[in-house]
């Protein structure tokens, strides 16, 4: 493609079947404590 470069895969649908293990870090335990951001958390798998 010359007009589009996909930089993030369709992760929501992909992980509907593979995710949910619950082992990842709780977002507020990282560095914030005053705002909720889950999009920057890391998957443990």
């Amino acid at each position, binding site marked *: 493609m010359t007009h*589009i470069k996909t930089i993030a895969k369709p992760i929501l649908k992909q992980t509907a079947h593979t995710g949910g293990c619950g082992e990842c870090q709780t977002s507020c335990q990282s560095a914030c404590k*005053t705002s909720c951001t889950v999009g920057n958390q890391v998957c443990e798998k």
Partner: protein
Amino acid sequence: MKSKVHLFTQLNKHFALDVGSGAIHLVTPPAFRLLSLIIAAGETSLSQTIPPRILQEVITINGIHEAWNELYALYNEGMLFSPDNSENLELPTKTPLKALCVHIAHDCNLRCGYCFADTGSFSSERGCMDIHTAKKAVDFLIERSGNRRNLEIDFFGGEPLLAFDVIKQAVEYARKLEKIHNKQFRFTLTTNGLLLNDDVISHINSEMKNVVLSLDGRNEVNDTHRTTIGGKGSYDVIVPKFQKVASTRKGDYFIRGTFTSKNLDFTEDILHIADLGFNNISIEPVVLEKGHDLEIREEHLPEIFAEYDRLTEILAARDDINFFHFNIDLEGGPCVYKRLRGCGAGGEYAAVTPSGSLYPCHQFAGRAEYKMGSVLDGSFTPNTELTVNHIKIRKGCSDCWAKYFCGGGCAAANLNINEDINIPYHIGCEMQKMRIECAIALKASTI
């Protein structure tokens, strides 16, 4: 929610974020123009050829049919205007507890002007947790953790180093139990730094997966708010100690600061912190009740957005600053369940006060109506108001493009600002959305 594509421009590049699938595309100006027109027309699907009423507006643009063909191909692959069904996924009604914010001290040796915890006291009697309660908290977490292996404890306050001995003993106790119960503890510590010394630093470096070091940035900015009980600034005392932590540390650390309405030029604080030799930096907007002198107000947003733009441009040109809120994992990142569950407060995450009382998170501590039990008697009633699917229940979240990045936002902020955990803190949402766009653009600049 129906199909939706969010368009934005950052770092002079155009992006299309497909909400339903999570796919993000970097697009050329012709493709961006086409998508803008499609969205403006209220369309949520693409036809094989450009609709006539749109074609007449773009017919003079070179490569417009080629751009359309590529957009149409993505549409057919489910990566553009895809159905947004993820928020309807079933979440488990019961989740094991996996993380505790352990309030080692409801007291502090600083008197910060914007402290959400009433300068460390959490609006109650000042005091520290004893080792009996701390061990009970460790026991409680293990007992309630089910099949979760990775367990987290953040030593928090107030200032947790006021009771460093309790931290040391609690860590030692947990390390003994983790082998017996096949668990892995990840400890973190959030500190203002005043009581750091070689012994403490050595313990932190050997035991803490992450340490959060509070510093607001420039000397005068930090010392305006982060003052001792006697009214002196803390900068000169803490900076050398933080530098020692960072220089001797192999594990994670973050310099974590707060910006207020008095330093909306917070990029200068981030750069100052970087100049001090720190690489991992988190500077966040203050959240305060309406009417507070330092609060972020609606009229500050344009200046804050411009500042985030400036910061993004600066960070795109250097690779020595890891800015926490511009982190994003476009290759993997959290699964859809994590994105729906959000912070987990009240279910998989809870806070323990020095007296052993349990609350949904550190920001709820002391609000009697949100007490969930006690580690001393083992009572625990998860807060079902908080453990539901936030995106579906919070006002306006379902229609927001950013919902799978913030997980429905912070219930405590909603409560503090709007007196309702399900009415989003609008100003916080707007800043969050801006940061997500900046994060995506920065990541794209490295691909």
